């Protein structure tokens, strides 16, 4: 088991650019989502191409059409088996970078520290906005040492007017501090989508996730989130990552038995870990609504967690609310402690299976 910050960009010796996808990792590996893969390694039919750093790269997108994604993943698995980790503990697989294949780790925290040293007179309009936004976030009481930048802002291949500003917040408490601060923060450049704008967004961006929501439900969920807004007309997104002492599980201390797809309703008893990836909602009073293998369940074991690897389902519900989720039901056996069940949405395999159209998490009070 090893800690490695989520949302960190990693370049590999094979020319991939990857983004870390968890804070806790198996020994010798880092769980990632490949972001750019050289087109000369695998052609990207159905995926988009980008020209970056002298190379024609395929932008790996989990939301590409399923058949094409499946084909791409199959080719990837054959050509780069080292980058797939079949976890015996999960009976599932993850994209990974073996540590001996890491070429460069782009440290978002160092990147921001460097950026803040650049005088504003030498920053372009985009970087001025980034500095101003960071200044605003620091008004929450979180220091710049606990913030970072990522993606094109960090690597320098951003396009003003098009590229988002992606900010990393280091530490779960810091994450909540900023998200809470933003509920009431005022700044002339800070804007949140209105209900009308979210409704338009819903109509224009029908995804496998949003199809489980009516327009009104979707708007109600999104309007209270504070991880995505615009600043000076540029979209910004906030990603909270866990410090080493904060990870909510340690790799290797539990085993997971996949038990098929289930739909469950429950009451949230704690949402403190719902703003990280993977994140979870602690639940009680779970009620199994739809599940084909009821006889396989041990009724004495409670369903205690709804886990998400998918960003659209972070911060969906708060303590006290009732939620409903459809995902992979797993029996969790901790090395120390009692077994429990959990629902997981957003495992990599979900995107190329029929779970892609089924999985969601929603707060029932927001219906």
């Amino acid at each position: 088991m090893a800690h490695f910050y989520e949302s960190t960009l990693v370049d590999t010796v094979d020319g991939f650019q990857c983004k870390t996808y968890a804070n806790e990792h198996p020994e010798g590996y880092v769980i990632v989502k490949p972001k750019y893969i050289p087109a000369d390694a695998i052609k990207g039919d159905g995926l988009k191409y980008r020209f970056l750093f002298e190379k024609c790269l395929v932008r790996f997108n989990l939301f590409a059409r399923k058949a094409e994604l499946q084909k791409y993943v199959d080719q990837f698995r054959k050509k780069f088996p080292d980058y797939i980790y079949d976890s015996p503990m999960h009976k599932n697989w993850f994209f990974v970078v073996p540590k001996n294949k890491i070429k460069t780790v782009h440290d978002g925290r160092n990147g921001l520290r460097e950026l803040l040293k650049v005088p504003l007179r030498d920053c372009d309009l985009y970087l001025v906005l980034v500095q101003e936004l960071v200044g605003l976030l620091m008004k929450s009481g979180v220091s710049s040492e606990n913030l970072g930048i990522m993606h094109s802002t960090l690597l320098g291949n951003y396009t003003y007017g098009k590229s988002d500003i992606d900010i990393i917040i280091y530490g779960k408490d810091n994450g909540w501090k900023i998200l809470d601060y933003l509920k009431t923060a005022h700044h002339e450049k800070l804007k949140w989508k209105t209900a009308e704008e979210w409704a338009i967004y819903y109509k224009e961006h029908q995804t496998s996730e949003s199809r489980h929501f009516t327009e009104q439900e979707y708007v109600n969920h999104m309007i209270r989130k504070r991880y995505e807004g615009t600043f000076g007309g540029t979209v910004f997104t906030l990603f909270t990552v866990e410090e080493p002492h904060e990870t909510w599980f340690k790799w290797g201390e539990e085993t997971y038995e996949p038990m098929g797809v289930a739909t469950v309703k429950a009451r949230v008893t704690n949402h403190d870990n719902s703003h990280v990836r993977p994140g979870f909602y602690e639940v009680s009073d779970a009620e199994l609504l739809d599940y084909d293998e009821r006889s396989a369940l041990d009724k004495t074991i409670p369903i205690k967690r709804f886990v998400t690897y998918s960003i659209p389902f972070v911060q969906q519900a708060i303590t006290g609310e009732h939620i409903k989720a459809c995902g992979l039901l797993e029996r969790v056996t901790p090395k120390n402690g009692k077994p429990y069940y959990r629902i997981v949405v957003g495992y990599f395999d979900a995107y190329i299976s029929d779970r892609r159209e089924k999985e969601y998490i929603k707060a029932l009070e927001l219906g």
Partner: protein
Amino acid sequence: MHFYESSIITTKDGLHCQVYANEHPTHSILVKPKYIPTDKVESSALQYRFIGGKKMNRLDMWAEKNALKIYVEQFKKAYPHYVMQSNMHSGSRLFFSVPIEHIERVYFPRTGLKELMSMPVDALDVHLRNVHEFVMLLTKSGLRMKDFGVTYSTLMGHYMSNISDINIVVYGKENFWKLMEFLENAEHSMLRWKTREEWLEFYGRRNRHKIWDKEKFLKIMERKRSEGFFGNTLFVIFAAEKEEERTCQWGSERYSDEGIAKVTGIVSDEFNSAVRPGFYTIEKSVVLSGKNVPVSQVFFHSRDYCMLARRGEKIEACGTLERVEPKQGEPYYRIVIGYLDSYITERREQEQMKVIS
């Protein structure tokens, strides 16, 4: 050793360097550091850029001279491995070079363009689409795709649409001149040449306005076909010398500094003025100041002096007078403009070359 000029090298300690010549010593590549991390050496007299997650200084040889001199001295101490002592040049010549073992990555303009042109056009943004279309136009000259490259911010991916230039590399001097001939008459709805006002804005920068009479400058520049606009984006076309085209191998000549001199002469061959470093072969030289010797070459390290003069035109040049002793052949004299050390000495204000008739 041959290594194409205009390629980009990133070093293991984070410098971004432009390859600054086509001919190099055996174990290192002559470069001009372009972006330098600020953790070891820093100057507020230079512009800052945020690149690759680092605060960098942009090394501008036209920055305020005293500050530049201090910076270069600090750089030499911080990065002694990138300062090359040439035993072929007398005087205190300054060469920056990257030893092979310090190279992190080379960005090859030809490879980059090949990759770019292999992209589906609908996957390209406005800037890259412009590059794509421009290169398609250039190939109508009869040159092949592999005769071209793309460099600087487009190659590295940190360009800004509507702001960054398109920098095209043409491999081969022969090819370059052929392309210039093609562009004399080329027509395309997105192609236009710089206006007088745009050239005058260019004239106002560096030391150009101190060297040139305005009207003469405009006349010389308006005939250039290596710079213009395509889709309202500035493009600049550079030539890189092929190995078989080189006029001199590194180590085959020795150079003695004979002080500053100003000469006039008639250009008898401008073929090699397309590249950096490049030169004009001259005849009927007259020394206006400095040691009175026959001068047969005006040699330059700055692109400012590329393709200024044509055969039969009279030029005036001021720079370091060098006696050149080839291992094989007769010694000769040349004027050299733009050694990197000239930018931090009084030569910065003295060195120049212009067409006088």
